[in-house]
Structures are given as C-alpha cells and as structure tokens.
C-alpha cells in the first residue's frame, strides 16, 4: 500500500467517523444532562470516583499537545481526529465538574484547588510513534468506555440519573473513539502486519491507564474505584483486550510468536555482546 493509499483510507475512516459524530453524537453538557435529577443522597465515594475521572480528563492539554506531536506528520485524518477528539473529551471534564459542583459534593473553590494540584503534574506520552499511540488509543479508549459504563450502572444504583447520564454520554464518545483508533490500526496492519504486531505486543505489555502517577492520591482512588466498578485484570482481558484483538483480526498466537521472536533476538544480542567482551 502506498502512502497515498494509506492517507486515502484514513481520510475515508475519518469522514465516516466525523459524519456519524455530527449526525448522532453531538451533546451539550450544560443542557442535555438532566441536572434536576441529581440525587443529593448519592454517597461521597461515588463523588470521589467522579472527581478521579475528572482528574484524568483534566490532562487534556497534555494529551492533545503531546499526542499531536507524534500524529501531526502521519496523516491529515489523524490530525483532524485529534482536534475533534479534544473537543469531545473536553465535554467529559465539563460534565463531571458540573456534576460535582451542582450536586454540592464539591465547591467551586475545592474544584479550583483540585485543578491547581492536578496541573502541578503533567502527562508523559507513553509511546513514541503514531502507530504505537494509535494502538494505545484503541486499548485505552475501550477501557475507559468499559469503566464509564460500570459507573453509569453504579450511579443508577444510587438513583442519580444526572450522573448516570454524564457517564452514558462520556461512554458513547469513548467507544466511538476506540473504534476509530481500531479502524486505523487495521489499516496499519494492512500496510505492515509484522511491524504492527510487534507494536501491539509492545503497547499491550507496557499499557497503563493515563491517570497513573499524575492524579493526586491515585492509588487510593483506584482501590476505591476498583471496589466500586472499575477495571480489574479479568475485566480488562474480557472486555478490552480480547475484543480489541478480535476486532483487529489479531490472534493471541500471533502475539506469542512476536514475544518469542523478541526474546530470541534479545538473547542473540546478549550472546553477541558477551562474545565481544
């Protein structure tokens, strides 16, 4: 596949994605969430979970700037997607912040202090190439979709229809993003299957969610969220890893072969280095 064909395929994917987003997925966090259905009795730990999501979403400037740094020269479709992605993700943090303040769970001042604390950290891009970051996006957006759905169920359990709606809107965007990333990875697989498989194995092995180490008290927050419907390793495998691989048409066996080859290459390099000493 030539680079022109690559760009053409991605442009087509983006047109489909963006048209669908405009037709079916536009929403307004100030107007479309039923704010009158906030349950004032929703327990504090549910608010802590919402605050944690807000923390992760708040690093949007880093995600955009550092993500675009590797994507901007790859294709116009990926640049356009990034711009639209940023707009859609922005609404997630707006909706979460609106919930926390409208519900009275947090004051404007507390939100300001939280944002200040968050911005003392910055997100580090976990991978260095457009292809790896696209693969990362497939797993990460799918994982976020699954987590938001679980928290939608939790909010419903507590009779908080407003918070449930926030999670539902956010989840709907996340799954659309995940599918776009997956479609792009499929194109990468068409162009260079062996190289893309190596990248999938690398990203999967080193995958972690974006809030790790940058959201204050992240470990304690995650313990709470895990108890209350977050991701554990089985859910990750069942709802994220296997479905993404299946959609991409990649088997576990292919990734095992990649791992075996990588180990053999490492050993050969090490043997060579030892012999040279």
């Amino acid at each position, binding site marked *: 596949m030539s680079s022109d064909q690559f760009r053409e395929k991605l442009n087509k994917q983006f047109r489909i994605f963006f048209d669908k987003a405009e037709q079916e997925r536009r929403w307004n966090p100030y107007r479309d969430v039923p704010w009158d259905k906030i349950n004032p009795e929703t327990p504090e730990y549910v608010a802590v979970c919402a605050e944690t999501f807000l923390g992760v979403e708040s690093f949007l400037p880093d995600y955009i700037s550092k993500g675009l740094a590797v994507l901007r020269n790859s294709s116009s479709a990926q640049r356009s997607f990034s711009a639209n992605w940023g707009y859609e993700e922005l609404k997630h943090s707006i909706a979460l912040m609106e919930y926390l303040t409208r519900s009275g769970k947090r004051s404007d001042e507390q939100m300001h202090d939280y944002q200040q604390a968050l911005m003392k950290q910055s997100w580090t891009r976990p991978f260095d190439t457009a292809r790896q970051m696209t693969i990362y996006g497939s797993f990460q957006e799918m994982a976020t979709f699954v987590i938001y759905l679980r928290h939608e169920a939790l909010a419903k359990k507590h009779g908080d229809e407003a918070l449930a709606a926030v999670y539902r809107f956010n989840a709907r965007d996340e799954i659309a993003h995940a599918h776009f990333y997956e479609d792009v990875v499929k194109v990468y697989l068409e162009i260079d299957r062996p190289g893309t498989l190596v990248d999938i194995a690398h990203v999967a092995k080193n995958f972690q969610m974006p809030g790790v180490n940058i959201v204050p008290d992240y470990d304690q927050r995650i313990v709470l969220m895990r108890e209350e419907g977050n991701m554990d390793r089985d859910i990750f495998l069942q709802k994220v890893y296997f479905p993404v691989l299946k959609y991409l048409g990649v088997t*576990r*066996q292919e990734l095992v072969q990649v791992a075996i080859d990588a180990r053999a290459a490492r050993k050969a390099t090490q043997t060579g280095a030892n012999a040279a000493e």
Partner: protein
Amino acid sequence: MKRSELITVFQRMASEIAEKDFSHVSEESVIADLGIDSLGMLELVGSMERELKIQIPDEQLVGIQSVRQLLDLVEKRTTQTT
C-alpha cells in the same frame, strides 16, 4: 500427560518468559505473585498451547488466578485432544 509433567512445562515456560527461576513454583502459587501480569500470563498460556499442541478459548482464560487453575484448564484440553 501427567500432572507432574505439566507443572514442569509450566515452570520451564514461565522461566523463559520472565527470565527467572521458577523451579520452586507449586500448584498453590498465585500467578500474579510470581510477577507475571495478566498479559504475561497470556504469553505463558500461548507458549504452553504451542508446546502441548492445544488451544484454549479466550473466554476460559478469564478468572485464572493460581497455577492450579491454569493447570486444570491445560490438563482438560490435553485430555480432550488426546
């Protein structure tokens, strides 16, 4: 294949993947406690599948925590294959 042979295969494969000595590992061991994360476990399972010429459906790998659970699964598949 005998159970004792299966655990030997497990120990050898795990040692190759994690580049650590797993000869002490027993069936009671918890896989995560060995320093093998969920994706490492998939690599381990994949290597055992190749070695033993079996195939384990993805959905059956969910919920595997201990070496015993994994060997039960592998044993069941080897029995079905032979």
